[in-house]
């Protein structure tokens, strides 16, 4: 399993670092919309409204969920890009 060629190992490390960076950023947003806007800052955000929704309440019951879906699709696109860049994409079969 171990890759004997050192330059390929360096590639693998760079790929992994890029992966961790992407996941880190996305998880930060994940935390901010749910625990941040939906829970910790909810009461403060409730002073504003979007339509009939108080903003904090909207994040907790609607907004956070929309953002979650978007986050996963950004991750999918980002990782597909990294796979191509580092040559790890599986053959289309």
């Amino acid at each position, binding site marked *: 399993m171990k890759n004997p060629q050192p330059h390929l190992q360096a590639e693998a490390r760079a790929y992994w670092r890029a992966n961790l960076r992407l996941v880190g950023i996305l998880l930060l947003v994940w935390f901010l919309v749910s625990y941040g806007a939906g829970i910790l800052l909810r009461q403060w955000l409730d002073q504003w409204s979007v339509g009939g929704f108080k903003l904090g*309440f909207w994040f907790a019951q609607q907004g956070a969920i929309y953002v979650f879906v978007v986050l996963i699709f950004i991750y999918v696109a980002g990782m597909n890009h990294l796979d191509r860049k580092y040559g790890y994409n599986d053959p289309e079969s």
Partner: protein
Amino acid sequence: MSVQVWTYILVIISFLLYIGIAIWSRASSTKDFYVAGGGVSPLANGMATAADWMSAASFISMAGIIAFAGYDGSVYLMGWTGGYVLLALLLAPYLRKFGKFTVPDFIGERYYSSTARIVAVLCALLVSFTYVAGQMRGVGVVFSRFLEVDVNTGVVIGMVIVLFYAVLGGMKGITYTQVAQYCVLIFAFMVPAIFISIQMTGNPVPQLGMGDTLADGSGTYLLDKLDGLSEELGFTAYTDGSKSMADVFAITLALMVGTAGLPHVIVRFFTVKRVRDARKSAGLALLFIAILYTTAPAVAVFAKTNLIETVNGRPYAEMPAWFTKWEATGLLTFTDRNADGMVQYVKDPARNELVVDNDIMVLANPEIANLPAWVIALVAAGGLAAALSTAAGLLLVISSSISHDLIKNVFKPDLPERQELWYARGAATLAVVVAGYFGINPPGFVAAVVALAFGLAAASFFPAILLGIFYKKMNSKGAVAGMITGISLMLFYMLKFKFGLFDGGKEAVAGLTSQWWFGISPEGFGSVAMVVNFAVALLVNRFTAPPPEHIQDLVEDIRIPGGAPPPSSH
């Protein structure tokens, strides 16, 4: 046609569909049986995961719970969707690359130890059995209320159906029936929601209708009206909760992490062909789930407003037909305390005359809103689809834990594949029968334990899998110590504060809330137990030998997607 006839027609059509699919997708190998042959498309897997995940609790109970909890209900909405972000970003792609059949497979190999494997099997069985009993009960309840058969007969009918396609088709049969079940359940959930949204706000999109103005031309926002009504009756405003912020935070975290650690959800990602398919199907699964999960809070608001307006302060004699119908089931009770012949619904328990079970809100919602008979019947078919799909997914985890993880990998490593397949079918049959038994004779604690299954999954699997992928030097002793401490602590907290085991039984539980550690309820304690799991695992790891070289290479290998091997038992 009457509701009853419509219900029979829709339920029978949907059951014939499931059986037809099961016959078409029989399993011929263990690979078919455990992971549907490993070639499921991301779209099909996304739908199957969504149906697998959304149980009778999501379909029937959640909107009702939110209707009575208001803002506090957000813990379920965020908790049961946010977990998919963790699953997609941190677990699913790597477990797919690892390419085995079950979660204990991963734990056992990554931690090079049969102790770790057996601990993982026990955790998987504990989580899955408690969860599945609740589903069988849900099947029975839907049958009894809509088709007016006995609850126990309902459970038996459900058992036969699940037995048929789970035993015959294994994961392959389950996957394609779950795709059909997703379509049935989402249609059944959305149609009444759209009808009611138009009725109340004139907006056909429930997610927007919830924040829209009322259709009566008053220009008042629906949520403002509900806030006002709630406060008038002595409750806190609907959009403002009564749980402490720390507890809301802890419960949300426990549900998210628990979702990511549930074996029947994780195993779905073993069924796709490539790592990129695993990522994509996690995204699609959450999209399909989000359709229901963003509609449920809207249904909650519509139903709660409707309920208060229809019954509060009105004469009992003038109650609509659904009121007396649900009174007969005992899920709705009216006691005329002040004997004025009117229904008073208020917070103060000494004056409140109306007790409404959470489950009614979705089941009776179409009737409360006077929707056509076929829409009411649709809800029954949807509830059955939700319960059956989740039950089947759980039964597969139970059967593969026994036939694959215990018999094949621990006791009889030289078991030929044909025989393993028969063991798998036998284990599935046994699991259905046991689940059916608990469905007919529900131990009083089932409902409570289902909610806590997430805490157990959070406290056991999540840290072990996460460290196994992201920390190359994580060793076996640390992981096992973490899992055992985490799950024991969770069990202890649950027994003490949920069942009052050490303080004189269930009656004592209410008096113990002031003793909750850090003010955190048993439902939220999974997040504390998870942190303890991480801490113990890392501490023990620090003082014991690092994992062997070939395991560290394995970890490097699963981090790279290229050429994910087809799932295999070797």
